[in-house]
């Protein structure tokens, strides 16, 4: 059974001038950890607001747990947990006060549902009398997650929970999500491509559309181009030189090396090496693409330079 079904959802602003969502369809299975991956402005937040019954779509249909997001909004609100993108806790209330408020909001108590949040809450417990405004970014995210979970929702919506959070806190946050995943359906959005591999399935979004939807492995498998990692002593010069070559579909820095993409068999390793012979310290290796490579290939399919 599908926990969430989205069919041809479109949402526009400014009298149709801005298309936030453009005919989006997908479904999320029961117990799945589903990722919406894309930069700001891709339409992730709009989608969340429609699914959490906060916005009405211009056209299309959506269901959460078999309930219609327009007609059955009251029933849906009882069964979902939502963590909005912008930080949404009471800064002047303590950790414990925040959690107990959100428990009351859903007519439950901390004690009643403690087992679901226990893993996360034990990390917060030493600071339970501290005001939420005085917590670090990572701790705030954990508290917000606790608050969204405290009523044992069937479906959890997390809108960019890790944005602006440092890499270590991000890792911890994802570990928590993985642990929860067996018990609850989770839809999470993120602009960080490296987090995509931690989801069961992902939708790559850009400009209000889903460009591709599959498991992370499936998305990598469908990458048809050849991808090489190239390193040299003059990286900045190397970028320009490679982009000037014919049939190069993309050349961008990836950490300490460049990822160079071209249609399969357009170049051989030796061919490239001789084309770039003026550069010293050249290291060329074939590599398996990551989600980020796939995303870039999708948003820039034909860009030669």
């Amino acid at each position, binding site marked *: 059974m599908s926990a969430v079904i989205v069919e041809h959802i479109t949402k526009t602003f400014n009298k149709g001038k801005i298309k936030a969502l453009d005919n989006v369809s997908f479904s999320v299975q029961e117990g799945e950890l589903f990722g919406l991956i894309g930069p700001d402005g891709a339409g992730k937040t709009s989608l969340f607001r429609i699914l959490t019954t906060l916005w009405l779509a211009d056209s299309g249909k959506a269901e959460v747990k078999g309930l219609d997001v327009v007609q059955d909004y009251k029933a849906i609100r009882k069964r979902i947990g939502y963590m909005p993108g912008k930080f949404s806790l009471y800064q002047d209330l303590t950790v414990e006060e925040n959690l107990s408020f959100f428990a009351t909001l859903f007519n439950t108590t901390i004690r009643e549902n403690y087992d679901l949040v226990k893993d996360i809450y034990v990390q917060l417990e030493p600071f339970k009398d501290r005001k939420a405004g005085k917590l670090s970014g*990572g*701790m705030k995210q954990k508290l917000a997650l606790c608050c969204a979970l405290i009523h044992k929702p069937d479906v959890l919506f997390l809108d960019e929970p890790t944005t602006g959070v440092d890499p*270590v806190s991000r890792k911890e946050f994802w570990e928590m999500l993985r642990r929860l995943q067996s018990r609850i359906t989770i839809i999470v959005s993120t602009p960080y491509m490296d987090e995509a591999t931690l989801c069961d399935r992902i939708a790559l979004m850009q400009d209000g559309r889903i460009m591709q939807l599959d498991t992370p492995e499936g998305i990598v498998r469908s990458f048809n181009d050849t991808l090489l990692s190239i390193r040299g002593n003059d990286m900045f010069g190397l970028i320009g030189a490679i982009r000037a070559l014919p049939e190069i579909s993309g050349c961008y820095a990836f950490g300490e090396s460049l990822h160079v993409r071209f249609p399969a068999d357009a170049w051989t390793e030796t061919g490239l090496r001789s084309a770039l012979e003026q550069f010293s310290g050249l290291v060329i290796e074939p590599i398996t693409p990551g989600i980020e490579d796939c995303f870039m290939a999708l948003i820039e399919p034909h860009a030669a330079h």
Partner: protein
Amino acid sequence: MQHTEQVIQAVNLTKRFGEFTAVDHINFTVHQGEVFGFLGANGAGKTTAMKMLIGISTPTEGSATVAGFDIATQSESVKQRIGYMSQKFSLYEDIPVMENIRFFGGIYGLRSKELKTKAAALLETLEMGSHAKTLVRDLPLGWKQKLAFSLAIIHEPKIVFLDEPTGGVDPITRRKFWELIYAAAARGITVFVTTHYMDEAEYCNRISIMVDGRIAAMDTPANLKTQFQSTSIDAIFTQLARGAQRSGD
């Protein structure tokens, strides 16, 4: 890298808020034309340190010079020689591109003739000539960021401070943005940048990693990897930040 002029020099730079030491005796230098990555977990003290360096917060102890001026006693001179761009505030959303250029040029004291040529050149390089009258709010995020960066260096500052400049943009725009950073560094503008993308740390000439208000590691990315016997900056960062005491802050 030719180590010429020292553009930033921090000596025992410290900031306390009551009992809490946000920045704890940090020492470092940044050279002209360098791209210096300033990393750290949330709450490690990055923002506090950056605020002192751009002259909007006074150190409790220690000192620092930026572009040759003392950040505590000559903060006005410091401010004239730096550019600053943050993810949160950089442009006026509800006025057109050209007005933003005029405004920021005016703030940095460009004369109207100079400003005119600069503005034209800027629109040309950014390929935004046809968007001079577009409201900033209606630009794609990537364009906004490029515009904000170009405005932060419109007065050719000695150094530009970038606070998480690439948060939330798509992977291609993010990389194009770094190419702009490199172009600026090649012109001799020193770049001081914070980021949560660890692959971006690799693009820096040198990086420092702050933990609990102190600098726990500082070197070129390659040297750090040798030193920590690790293959990625991400792993080094994780190792250092996990050892932090201030988990709650």
